[in-house]
């Protein structure tokens, strides 16, 4: 469906280290496409702790995850990185010509001379309730997001969670579903107060039901859900349901990285400490996803790794070309690239 994209470098992961890799590669005239499963840049900084101050970025006494992300985007803007969000890299293979073929779950294919895995803890995926057999219902009866409201028309819907997604969809789906039951472990919610008020008002009118509890089991046949079992304070309750929407946020899974034939150690990619190259020449791993003796999972370690990786990547992309080491403070050619001169 899509045209193949040919590029010097594909970076897997748009967290702080993946973003800074764009900068280090850019100084060496290497162009990068960046792929991330999230719908925006920042990785863990944006998804897990956008508001939390970080105190150990050199030269920046205090910065939040979101500010750091914004600063990095500003810093790499001169290199015009091409982002591909909401896509997960599913396959990575070496071609006969020595280049790599990278494919995403959106069907996009990249052909790159170098691949940089900066995937942190892996890919963010919805937290799946630990209910036996839930996988069999996913995509048919169990959803972690609402794509089409029509999928819920005239259905008995159970929504689990206490945040904005759970409350917003309780309010929205009430208008089309046959029934909506909201389940949460307590009667307080972290969702926006006006949504919570609205939900209670609908509950009073009998238009939505609320249950205190946690999902403990599912009943159904061949992927078709018929009931959700709840563990409540008083015991178990069975609710007729053919749709379940659990909203528990995201967690990180290593995902397809494990299938790319790279040497791993406890789910981390082993690299050398001169180039941060994996067991497959031309594929590098930087940031939290790599391991080597003495590794510290710090953003600043990832920045250092990005700089050394870029030198090695340049040698692959432009073999034989002499690399002149330059400083951004003194090199007019680097300053031109940064549009500062």
């Amino acid at each position, binding site marked *: 469906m899509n045209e193949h994209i040919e590029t010097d470098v594909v970076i897997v992961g748009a967290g702080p280290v993946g973003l800074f890799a764009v900068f280090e590669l850019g100084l060496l005239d290497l162009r990068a496409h960046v792929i991330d499963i999230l719908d925006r840049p920042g990785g863990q900084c944006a998804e897990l702790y956008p508001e939390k101050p970080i105190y150990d970025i050199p030269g920046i006494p205090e910065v939040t995850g979101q500010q750091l992300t914004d600063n990095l985007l500003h810093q790499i803007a001169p290199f015009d990185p091409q982002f591909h969000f909401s896509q997960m890299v599913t396959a990575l293979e070496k071609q006969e010509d020595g280049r790599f073929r990278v494919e995403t779950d959106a069907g996009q294919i990249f052909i790159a001379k170098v691949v940089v895995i900066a995937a942190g803890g892996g890919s963010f995926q919805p937290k799946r309730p630990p209910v036996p057999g839930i996988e069999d219902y996913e995509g048919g009866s169990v959803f972690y997001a609402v794509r089409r409201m029509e999928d819920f028309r005239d259905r008995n819907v159970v929504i689990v969670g206490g945040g904005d997604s759970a409350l917003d969809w309780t309010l929205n789906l009430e208008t089309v579903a046959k029934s909506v039951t909201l389940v949460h472990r307590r009667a307080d919610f972290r969702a926006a107060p006006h949504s919570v008020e609205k939900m209670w008002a609908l509950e009073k009118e009998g238009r939505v039901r609320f249950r205190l509890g946690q999902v403990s089991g599912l009943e159904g046949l061949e992927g078709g859900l018929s009931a959700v079992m709840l563990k409540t304070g008083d015991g178990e309750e069975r609710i007729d349901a053919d749709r379940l929407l659990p909203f528990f946020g995201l967690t990180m899974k290593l995902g397809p990285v494990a299938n790319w034939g790279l040497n791993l150690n*406890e789910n981390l990619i082993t690299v050398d400490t001169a180039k941060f190259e994996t067991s497959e020449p031309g594929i590098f791993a930087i940031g939290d996803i790599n391991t080597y003796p003495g590794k510290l999972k710090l953003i600043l370690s990832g920045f250092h790794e990005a700089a050394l990786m870029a030198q090695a990547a340049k040698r692959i992309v432009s073999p034989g070309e002499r690399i002149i080491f330059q400083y951004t403070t003194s090199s007019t050619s680097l300053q031109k690239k940064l549009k500062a001169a």
Partner: protein
Amino acid sequence: MQIHVTDRHGKRHTLEALEGFRVMEIIRDWDLDIKAECGGACACGTCHVYVAPEWAEKLRGPLDEETEQLDMTFDVEANSRLSCQIIMTAELDGLEVTLAPGTEKERAAA
């Protein structure tokens, strides 16, 4: 100063603890299996523990952000806490906790 931690296999470990450290950090630094994927930012729920009843009272109650994070965690009980939000003090010498389901590190498929 010590804490007692029962792992996901039911084995009880007695760990030397240091004042001022987070219980999650103590468990992690003694190499017990704990995912603690956000590193102590109260942002993931993968350091979830059950606190022994006799100790529950002695802990400073959870802040809103911990309670809200527990809302996004599974198998939550009345004595659930996030171990990254429990800071070791002399009063907690002997603390007894059990790692909850969902705290195991991901294992690569063989």
